[in-house]
């Protein structure tokens, strides 16, 4: 007689940004197998881009993700600049791109710290981290006019300048955020409850991280010193910084890497605003791009974001291929979940920062009897918090 029970989790959840479906097989409380199904929010953006011109596509790329919208526009712009070949992006524009990318990483990692706190049942961390995130969101709003889709990067530079008044504000906020990052790192390393819920939980082996093409903080939490920013795109080649690496590969390591990166980002932004040269912020480019192919990648908050673009001589791309970081990290979920407790599933899944966290409504299926019952989120939170 089979001992396992299959629990379908997802795909629909009113609080989820991205619906996904996890079919989890458990033996008692222990996860023995997991099947991940994607595609519930597939919008056909790659196809859509073939019917829009290069400038319109900046705004399509921006809408790939509600959190890393800036990362998408910068990578798309870089891919098209590589296609054209002889575009010299002004230095000031490169610095502004770097500032936007790092502000985005700051708010994304602080958002993650809050979500992690929520998933392990400590709402104080959630509220506190999201409050601190607001300082960064306010800055982004002052720079770009928007909290989410900044509309900053364009082909050949950026669309808006950063004024000297805002630079003063940026410096102040960086001081606050650095201190708070230290505080949260201390909490994740020393708070007994958080340590009990994160240390040794959802461990990803070094070998599996490599085998399943992990990227970003998920990869660096397994001891790999690999950060695409070291390629020196935008202004990263002009500033001093080192990638944050942890060894254990568990949820705690992933938290430590992200919180460490908050401090690194704050330092990069400080250096950028002090070194930023005066000058133009964009160069004009012709609407048509002759036949070519090019690639571009950057380190988005969740890891490497990759674009491949192909032109055919017209003002519309022949093909744009986008590989987001979560798409690369999703295969690592299976080895991290197997052998873990069901109640740890939300935080383990959230630890790769996939934009989706828990679930409001699950159907429990007893495979032996074929019984099925639907429960709501309160049930899941109850077992999650023990």
């Amino acid at each position: 007689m089979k001992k396992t029970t299959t629990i379908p989790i997802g795909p629909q959840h009113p609080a989820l940004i991205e619906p996904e479906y996890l079919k989890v097989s458990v033996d008692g409380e222990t996860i023995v197998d997991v099947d991940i199904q994607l595609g519930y929010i597939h919008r056909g953006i790659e196809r859509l881009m073939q019917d829009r011109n290069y400038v319109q596509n900046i705004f399509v790329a921006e809408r790939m993700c509600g959190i890393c919208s800036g990362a998408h526009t910068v990578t798309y712009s870089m891919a098209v600049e590589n296609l054209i070949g002889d575009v010299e992006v002004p230095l000031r524009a490169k610095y502004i791109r770097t500032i936007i990318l790092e502000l985005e990483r700051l708010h994304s990692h602080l958002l993650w710290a809050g979500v992690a706190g929520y998933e392990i049942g400590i709402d104080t961390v959630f509220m506190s981290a999201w409050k601190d995130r607001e300082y960064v969101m306010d800055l982004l709003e002052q720079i770009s006019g928007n909290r989410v889709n900044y509309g900053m990067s364009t082909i050949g530079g950026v669309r808006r300048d950063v004024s000297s008044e805002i630079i003063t504000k940026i410096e102040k906020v960086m001081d606050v955020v650095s201190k708070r990052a230290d505080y949260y790192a201390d909490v994740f390393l020393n708070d007994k409850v958080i340590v009990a819920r994160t240390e040794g939980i959802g461990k990803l082996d070094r070998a599996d991280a490599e085998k399943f093409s992990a990227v970003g903080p998920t990869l660096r939490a397994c001891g790999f010193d690999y950060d695409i920013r070291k390629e020196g795109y935008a202004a990263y080649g002009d500033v001093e910084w080192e990638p944050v690496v942890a060894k254990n590969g568990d949820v705690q390591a992933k938290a430590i890497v992200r919180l460490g990166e908050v401090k690194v980002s704050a330092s990069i932004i400080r250096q950028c605003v002090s070194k930023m040269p005066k000058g133009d912020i964009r160069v004009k480019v012709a609407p048509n791009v002759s036949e070519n192919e090019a690639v571009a990648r950057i380190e988005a908050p969740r890891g490497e974001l990759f674009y491949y673009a192909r032109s055919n001589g017209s003002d519309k791309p022949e093909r744009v291929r986008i590989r987001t970081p979560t798409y690369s990290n999703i295969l690592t979920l299976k080895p991290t979940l197997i052998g873990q407790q069901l109640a740890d599933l939300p935080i383990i899944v959230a630890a790769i920062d996939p934009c989706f966290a828990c679930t409001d409504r699950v159907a429990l299926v007893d495979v032996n009897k074929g019984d099925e019952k639907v429960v709501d989120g309160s049930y899941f939170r109850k077992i999650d918090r023990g």
Partner: protein
Amino acid sequence: MDEIDFEGLGKVVKKSKDGSATFIEVDAPDLRRVLTKLRLSGVKRLMTITGVDNGREIEVIYHFDANYHIVNVKIRIGREDSKVESITTIFSGAKLFERELAEMLDVRIEGNREPQNVFLCEGSPRAPLRKKDDVEMKEKGND
């Protein structure tokens, strides 16, 4: 990681201006041999697989990360009865990318044990990234 001998892998089509990417073209039957060689030379991470329908043939491009360098290996296959060999035994990370290539461009992956769709659900347009005849597109109301 050792220096990669790109010339020994296939025809080097071009290098990017800043030297961060190399584009190589190989014959489709040589794909697995070339990728095994690439794997043995220390390249461990497949970044993604791109399929392009250029109207005459299907181009399949395998993008690899070679220690801050992007290696793009391209093969060309026919538009009729399109098929490529699976590379999951060489690069495990190819699992989802191959399934996506299959559903988006109607390319058969020989040897991928999980042939089901990743993104498209039942009733979705078949092979949406294939170039379609304009008349056919209008009839289906796809455009």
